[in-house]
């Protein structure tokens, strides 16, 4: 028994099994979150549009009560609809798996996995919590976090392009072409808009960026969340941070193909875009990949601008003993709450702005966002160098 415990405490083995446990945990949490993001999307969308949305498919809790002979309150009006994701998943599983005869089979099959793979891999470097019992709550603590995310998440477009090309059909092809050009025009702004942050923090490690925000206040609320007044430099840096936040979030919308930049899908124009020819589980994978990408993007925004897992007055998980574990868990909950808040913002924006016309999209990307992000770097550099 002791020998087994010793084996698990061996540094290398410890690293491996904790990493595996964290990966499994984050996968479960994120996939569960995906299904309920879809539910939230449907429900919030309908509430915004003065409808009720899916409110029928509930969990049969009252049946459970009847089984044990307990007279329970009927929770279905409140919990109604919470079973919808399960019903959706079952529906997609049971649908006919149809591959049209005219597609390029190999790439047609590879494309959906590429889309979701990229989105999930990018999650690896996001610090989703402080630490629990000395184990840092990040799967891969690498020094090139943001670069890794940019590199991997731009691979996600291969899924779309391959799907569009292998479908051998005009609408998916349009979607794929649009997606490519959209990616090229927004990836630049995306990358440039976070450079000011790296100038401020001085590190490219996401864990260090969060720790900096814990010590000095969130990027968007400098000083205040750390429980002190911001210094002159911090107050001055708030302006470029805000600009960076706006450009970064906008670029993230384009990156995750969300409205107002959902040109690759554009139901009204392209019959669903790149996944027109897909059905059943392959379509579900695209769906999953899209929402996972959304969650990855939201986590990235939270990590960079909204203080990651930090909540004022709640210490990190580095405390000794049980309080440390509890605080670590609270930190994880805080992180995912923030992510969910950003996702709700994504959804609200979806029903606020109409889709951009293609040339407007290009103009916004190349003429406005790119320049603003570039100027923002100089502004930040100036403040960092001269305002003290």
């Amino acid at each position: 028994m002791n020998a087994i415990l010793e084996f698990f405490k061996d540094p290398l083995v410890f690293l491996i099994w904790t990493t595996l446990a964290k990966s499994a945990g984050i996968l479960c949490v994120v996939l569960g979150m995906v299904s309920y993001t879809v539910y939230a999307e449907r429900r919030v969308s309908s509430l915004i549009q003065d409808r009720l949305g899916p409110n029928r498919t509930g969990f049969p809790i009252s049946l459970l009560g009847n089984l044990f002979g307990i007279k329970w309150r009927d929770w279905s009006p409140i919990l109604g609809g919470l079973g919808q994701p399960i019903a959706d998943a079952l529906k997609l599983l049971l649908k006919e798996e149809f591959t049209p005869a005219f597609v390029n089979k190999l790439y047609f099959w590879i494309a959906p996995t590429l889309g979701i793979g990229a989105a999930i891999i990018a999650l690896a470097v996001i610090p989703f919590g402080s630490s629990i019992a000395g184990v840092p709550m990040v799967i891969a603590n690498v020094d090139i976090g943001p670069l890794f995310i940019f590199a991997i998440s731009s691979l996600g477009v291969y899924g779309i392009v391959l799907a569009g090309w292998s479908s051998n059909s005009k609408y998916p092809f349009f979607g794929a072409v649009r997606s490519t050009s959209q990616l090229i025009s927004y990836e630049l702004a995306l990358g440039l808009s976070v450079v000011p942050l790296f100038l401020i923090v001085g590190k490219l490690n996401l864990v260090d960026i969060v720790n900096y925000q814990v010590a000095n206040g969130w990027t968007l609320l400098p000083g205040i969340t750390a429980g002190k007044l911001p210094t002159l430099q911090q107050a001055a840096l708030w302006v470029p941070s805000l600009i960076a936040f706006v450009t970064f979030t906008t670029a993230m919308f384009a990156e995750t193909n969300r409205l107002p930049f959902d040109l690759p899908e554009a139901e009204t124009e392209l019959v669903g875009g790149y996944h027109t020819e897909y059905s059943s589980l392959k379509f579900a994978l695209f769906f999953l990949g899209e929402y996972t990408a959304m969650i990855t993007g939201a986590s990235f925004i939270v990590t960079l601008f909204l203080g990651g897992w930090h909540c004022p007055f709640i210490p990190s998980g580095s405390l000794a003993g049980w309080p440390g574990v509890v605080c670590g868990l609270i930190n994880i909950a805080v992180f995912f709450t923030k992510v969910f808040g950003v996702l709700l913002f994504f959804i609200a924006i979806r029903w606020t702005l109409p889709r951009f016309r293609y040339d407007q999209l290009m103009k916004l990307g190349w003429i406005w966002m790119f320049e603003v992000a570039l100027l923002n770097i100089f502004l930040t550099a100036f403040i960092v160098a001269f305002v003290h």
Partner: protein
Amino acid sequence: MAYQVPRPKLTLAEKIYIPTVLAGLRITLGHLWRMLRGKTHVCMQYPEEKWDANLPDYYRGAPTLVSDEQDRTRCVACQLCEFICPPRAIRIKPGEIPSEDKFAKVEKYPEAFEIDMIRCIYCGLCQEVCPEQAIFLKKEYVINGTSRAQMVHDKAKLVEMGGLRTGLVNKWNEKK
């Protein structure tokens, strides 16, 4: 002929775009907030709420066979409804009333009367054509079954749905 659509002059706030986004968000979230407080009037929640009480008198629901004061089905199996029915949903098998019966002079009665509710289009022509005021479209609209056979209303069902209806012409009664 080419028609030039005048471009609107945008203010600075509109050109920057961010303020307009915020204004849009205010509207969107305003709707959400009104909805969450229950101030928005949403559509009827069907199985729980029904509009039955407000159905107009001319509402055309399921066709039914009505009975008269003597608890007789008014239908005389003339088959006019069967002939006029556009989707041919009605099937009538006429039967003869025996001569010793009190209503022997009516001569015929429907031995079987079936309306296929899958075919029925609720046009009301059967009601209109009926010379005996025997078939009426009721306000019944929840018609369901788990098989095609269940969707065919037979005579018993039609009579049950029709129920008693008084105050109609009673030409077959004994003269007073």
